């Protein structure tokens, strides 16, 4: 029999937070929620409280000198999680301002002790802790703070109460005694760059469990706080193995291209379609989704167009209207990649999709908050990994500036991240701008190495022949192959 203490983890029900915490909050832990003013500390504390408090495990929310309680009630009730009926039943707000104003830690502690003894709460919140400290400093008692925190920590643990101290702008480097005493340190930040503001949460410490390291983006809306846990951790708990698929290859719906790919795109692969503007990337993407629907699969398309009014591909529009393809057209400013992954995975789960299109990476980069752009490549890797874990087959488009001096597939160095690449280019032949495409790679699979002409018509893409008599196609200005050593300009019509 296991005689070790079992640490029960409380599910905060703040979306994404439990994943970031590594499975919830340890019961009876002593936690600090810190951050600058306005970063969402009180909101987080209230949301956790309303989620966890029950008549059997009531909560006490001590307000000190920070936000006046009336104001807090006024604003907090705007959130969906706020439940007026819980007030004075499972949730009790108690003002300590009268005691705190004296600057006497002992008196504040005594008051907390008395209330805790009277109501026997399972959850205790002290907001804001900074005010306790400041009040104490005014009282001229430097040792008081540490004693206060230590005593409070000890007291609350003995009373079997999970405790949260909500505190303002501690500096991280500050050797604050509170940090040592606390079991958990939850740090909220705001990263401001140009006109964009991104809220981030970091679990600096959580005793007894492995948390997701680093900064995690969160949003505050009417429902409260939503944390976007790292894409990989979301996907790992979200295997969509039950997605119905046919065959081990996903056809893209352009027969000749499917043949070139070696029979379609292997399931679970990600395909990068790179090409210049107007080369038909989005049309190919629509074909990929339409082919899926034709064989009974659903799909998700995430578009990041700058102009939402721009008329979409009619094929795609119909698929979306019929609900066979889910559209993610996020107009949210300051996106983070984890949020997009979450949106996509939610839709994948909802309609049991097996195909996902991202159109395009260029638009996606622009939709991201500036603060994430330097990490775009890493983020993209996270996205591709998460989607691969979810078991979907992905097609991404990437705008490629046509440079005829080098053969490039993606401005982001994203080429190595993807399992397959199709490149599209313009060439000039006989005073016409023609399009060619080729399959550059299909990981661990045989594929064609042909450079084929293709055209875009009413029925989408039709792939034509190679141009065996031409060379230098990738340079954009091909020439007829040399016969007898002298180059012949294209279009001369010299029979071979």
């Amino acid at each position, binding site marked *: 029999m296991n005689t070790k203490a079992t640490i029960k983890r409380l599910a905060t029900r703040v979306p994404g937070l439990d994943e970031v915490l590594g499975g919830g909050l340890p019961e009876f832990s002593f936690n600090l929620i810190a951050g600058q003013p306005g970063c969402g500390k009180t909101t987080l504390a209230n949301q956790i409280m309303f989620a966890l408090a029950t008549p059997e495990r009531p909560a006490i929310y001590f307000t000190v000198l920070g936000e006046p309680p009336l104001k807090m009630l006024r604003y907090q009730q705007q959130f969906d999680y706020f439940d007026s009926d819980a*007030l004075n039943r499972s949730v009790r707000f108690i003002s300590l301002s009268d005691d705190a104003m004296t600057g006497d830690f002992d008196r504040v502690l005594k008051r907390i002790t008395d209330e805790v003894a009277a109501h026997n709460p399972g959850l205790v919140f002290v907001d804001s802790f900074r005010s306790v400290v400041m009040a104490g400093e005014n009282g001229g008692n430097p040792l008081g703070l540490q004693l206060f925190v230590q005593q409070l920590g000890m007291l609350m643990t003995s009373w079997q109460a999970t405790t949260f101290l909500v505190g303002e702008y501690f500096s991280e480097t500050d050797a604050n005694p509170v940090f040592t005493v606390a079991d958990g340190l939850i740090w909220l930040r705001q990263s401001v760059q140009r006109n964009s503001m991104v809220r981030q949460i970091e679990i600096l410490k959580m005793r007894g469990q492995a948390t997701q390291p680093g900064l995690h983006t969160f949003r505050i809306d009417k429902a409260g706080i939503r944390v976007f846990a790292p894409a990989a951790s979301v996907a790992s708990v979200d295997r969509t193995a039950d997605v119905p698929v046919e065959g081990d290859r996903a056809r893209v719906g352009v027969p000749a291209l499917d043949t070139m790919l070696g029979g379609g795109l292997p399931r679970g692969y990600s395909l990068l379609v790179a090409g210049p503007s107007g080369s038909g990337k989005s049309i190919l993407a629509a074909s990929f989704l339409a082919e899926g629907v034709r064989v009974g699969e659903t799909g998700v398309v995430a578009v990041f167009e700058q102009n939402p009014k721009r008329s979409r591909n009619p094929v795609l529009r119909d698929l979306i209207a019929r609900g066979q393809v889910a559209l993610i057209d996020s107009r949210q400013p300051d996106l983070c990649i984890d949020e997009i992954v979450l949106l996509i995975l939610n839709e994948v789960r909802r309609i049991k999709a097996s195909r996902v299109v991202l159109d395009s990476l260029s638009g996606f980069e622009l939709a991201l908050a500036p603060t994430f752009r330097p990490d775009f490549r890493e983020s993209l890797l996270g996205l591709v990994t998460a989607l691969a874990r979810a078991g979907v087959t992905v097609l991404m488009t990437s705008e490629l500036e046509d440079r005829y001096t080098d053969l490039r597939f993606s401005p982001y160095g994203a080429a190595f991240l993807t399992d397959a690449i199709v490149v599209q280019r313009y060439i000039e032949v006989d005073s016409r701008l023609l399009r060619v495409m080729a399959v550059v790679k299909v990981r661990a699979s045989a594929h064609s190495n042909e450079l084929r002409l293709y055209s875009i018509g009413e029925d989408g893409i039709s792939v034509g022949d190679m141009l065996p008599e031409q060379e230098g196609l990738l340079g954009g200005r091909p020439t007829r192959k040399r016969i007898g050593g002298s180059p012949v300009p294209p279009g001369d019509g010299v029979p071979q």
Partner: protein
Amino acid sequence: MNAQHGKESVTSSPLGGRLVEGASAGQVADTVGAIWLEIDDALHPIIGRRGMAALYNRSLSLTAAAHPWLAAGYEGTLSAVDTAALKSALASQTAAEARAGGSALFQSFHGLLTSLVGASLTDRLLHSVWKHSAGASSAQDTNS
């Protein structure tokens, strides 16, 4: 007229249900003082004694527009609710005016709190005080 007034105040003020017909100004003053203590007991743990005192003073100032004599009830204490001045101001009015002023004061307090934290939370917070009064007048109040 009297009955109508009494019924109206049951729904919006806790005073009507607690006073017998023909109560003197002194009795009105005592009842008003007692109700304020109940309200204070219900709210000061949540919003602090100073927060409560601020709301009390604001209610007095709002109601004094219609009942100028209520201004005498305002002592300007910031740290806690003190009803002594209010009670003596009430006791020096006629019974009807004391009753009307007292009721109006509770109504404006209720309205003030509602404007700050919303109706449902206000009802939740003042439930015990208002319920107490409604219960006493259940014979009249057939709606609830």
